[in-house]
């Protein structure tokens, strides 16, 4: 038995070791690439190479000069490619929308397969996301009007509507009013919709995070309180107990915050004590409407807690959710202390 088990163990160990080494190889390869890129993009490298090449050409008596100049050409072309790529990255970092040319691989493609690509950069949580692409071509005979050919914009962004507005199909030649296209406004509007969507989704994420943090804090506060009364009891219990402690404490920690529609304009809210709510945002993240229900009845109090007076942006709601629960737990603890 043991003799059978041992090779297995050894084999497993070896497998682990191989896996480990392979991951090391991958990291080293990546490092190598990064260093190579750094060297290639340095200006001095290029100058050195050029000078070296001149000297090579001068003493062409060497046998190896031919192969060595071929290597030089390769490195130089690589440097050029690197420079082009660096410039593209720079443009992409600086400008939110960049264009590029694509060839449609379809042999039957219209307009000899030339396609204009638009690249929309999006940032979320201090990171560049994968850009969205919109490809345009010119399918109409005797007209230079553009048309959306392919795109990677998700359906929550009303691209068809925008295309119909700004990039209409050419009207027949005998029409009195010729349809005009406005690529610039199209691009601007698409980008605005994309960025707005991501901002709305991000602020809903912030609200969920604030609610979760407040709930955790509330549970911790409750725990401290209860700790004096009885030592046992985990956090979840603390949550439930908090709910039982009177109307004002509400214990109504938000337990569920999520976007309720594809465009991330509506937020559905759920509290621990069964209250449910719906919050409607306008395009730019301002709070449009809020409604909260408690047992099939409208709950104006909670609604006012969420949104009051002038602060009608979702960011304010986020702040208030984080802040109000803090004060609430404090009052709760005071109350329960008085009670005990």
């Amino acid at each position, binding site marked *: 038995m043991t003799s059978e088990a041992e090779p297995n163990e050894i084999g497993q160990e070896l497998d682990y070791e191989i896996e480990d080494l392979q991951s090391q190889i991958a990291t080293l390869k990546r490092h190598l*690439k990064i260093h190579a890129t750094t060297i290639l993009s340095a200006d001095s490298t290029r100058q050195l190479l050029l000078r070296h090449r001149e000297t090579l050409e001068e003493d062409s008596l060497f046998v190896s000069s031919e192969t060595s100049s071929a290597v030089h050409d390769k490195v130089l072309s690589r440097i050029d490619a690197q420079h082009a790529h660096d410039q593209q990255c720079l443009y992409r970092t600086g400008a939110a929308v960049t264009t590029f040319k694509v060839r449609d691989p379809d042999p039957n493609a219209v307009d000899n397969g030339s396609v204009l690509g638009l690249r929309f950069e999006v940032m979320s949580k201090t990171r560049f996301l994968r850009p969205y692409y919109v490809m345009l*071509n010119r399918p109409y005979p005797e007209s230079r009007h553009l048309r959306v050919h392919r795109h990677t914009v998700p359906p929550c962004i009303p691209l068809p509507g925008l295309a119909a507005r700004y990039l209409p199909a050419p009207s027949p030649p005998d029409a009195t009013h010729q349809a005009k296209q406005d690529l610039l406004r199209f691009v601007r509007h698409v980008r605005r*919709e994309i960025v707005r969507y991501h901002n709305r989704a991000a602020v809903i994420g912030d609200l969920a995070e604030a609610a979760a943090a407040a709930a955790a804090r509330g549970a911790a506060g409750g725990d401290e309180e209860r700790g004096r009364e009885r030592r046992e009891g985990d956090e979840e219990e603390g949550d439930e107990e908090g709910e039982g402690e009177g109307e004002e404490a509400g214990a109504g920690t938000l337990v569920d915050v999520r976007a309720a529609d594809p465009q991330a304009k509506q937020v559905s809210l759920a509290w621990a004590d069964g209250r449910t709510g719906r919050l409607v945002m306008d395009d730019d993240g301002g709070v449009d409407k809020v409604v909260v229900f408690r047992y099939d009845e409208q709950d104006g109090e909670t609604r006012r807690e969420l949104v009051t007076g002038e602060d009608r942006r979702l960011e304010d709601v986020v702040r208030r959710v984080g802040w109000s629960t803090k004060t609430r737990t404090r009052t709760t603890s005071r109350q329960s202390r008085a009670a005990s």
Partner: protein
Amino acid sequence: MSRLSVPTSGRLSPTVRISNSTVVVQKVINRLSRQALLSLALDWMDEPNRALCAPLLQDYDDPNDFYPPVSSLAKLRELYRDMETRKGSKKEVSDRILEGDWRHGLSLYQLAMADVRYLHEHPTWQKWMVYRILPLAINPDLDTEADASEVDHESLSVSRLHPSSFLKNLQSQVLPDTKAHYHLHRLPELRLLLIRVFLIDTPYSNNLPSGNGSSSADATHADTSRTLYIVFPDGAPFVYISKIQGASASSGGADSKLFRNLVTDSIPKALSRPRERYTLKYTNIQGKNLQALLSMKGAGRGNAADGGWSMYADKRKESPLDTLLPTPPLSEDSSDDVILENLKRGTKRKSHIDVAEEQCIRKARRSAQARFGNSARPEDGRGVERVDISMRDPFKTRRAGERQIAEHDTEGLSSWAPEVKLTFRGPHVFAGMRLLVENGIINGQRMPGWLTGEEGVTVGEVRHGRVQGHYGSGF
């Protein structure tokens, strides 16, 4: 005995029981596997479902009873757990359920659960037709009827689904002499909402008789039932609608088509709200694989970027802050191990393989990569099983000795086009195409675009080498 039956317009309650002798119940239960039946029975006894699927519990023992009822729920649960551990036939379990513990009939809720369980086991059971939800233009001056079919192409609104109000509105669209039961369900690992609609031709919504009292008339009511599935993908303005399934053989053909039209008419009405109206438009996509449909018409980026364009939609990281030169696919550094491995295997098999042939293979693979990108891999689970294409290309004509292609096909004598229809079938049509290109059987550079799946349709007409009506675009 004088139970009052009043025609109502309400929906059927999930607790309404259907007699076990009906064809519907027999069909639904008998197609499930033994394992599924057992876990289903255990699910019925679980806390949230118990009220809607109560089993028969009795204390006394009837010696003539083949499946004597058990006295408590715990005992019953133990009985089914016991059956789970030992081997046996499916018949044993289904008989135990239908003639033993649920002999008084299965509730509509139970039936729905059983049906959905079958869909879990067989994800490609249903064939779906994909419809796009389009906003309608609202013109306050005109009568609502007159301007009903005007699609607002410039609208910026994206339809939103609120399941409970959708069902409420759908109910109001159902004909008064039919009753419906709705069941909402989320399939695991798929971002969609499944609605099962179960329709019975009866104006009454009270208990369909169970056990002894069952009259033949009521049994026929249950047997005229039809089941329909509606799928709403999350965050995307599309609806997938399944074929109507009748319980008996009689309900089929033209009748079910009529019924389907009725349903597709009522769905947009149920989705619409005051000042926000929608219509459905067929997208020329049919398929059985929900995963494939989701990638073609779902919430992601790939809706209008299939085939070779999918390289713009895949999950690769592409930050402008990354200054590393991107490696071209199929180069030495690229991580396309599978292809290289295949290449090596190929060389091993033929030891005398010459350089030219190897270059040929490489070229074919590269062109496949260019035309298909990372889509249409045999193992990606997004197979389309049938593609119908009808060719409308004008026939190539030869005039006066010189070869010339008739350009003006729309009018004139040379517009004769033979009727050619192509149907591709298989577990994954486009992956098959890709394999043919990779092996050099199809020339990747000259292959038309609709063979790569980039047009995003499964039914289409081709003219000038492009799917018609799209100017060469699936958008």
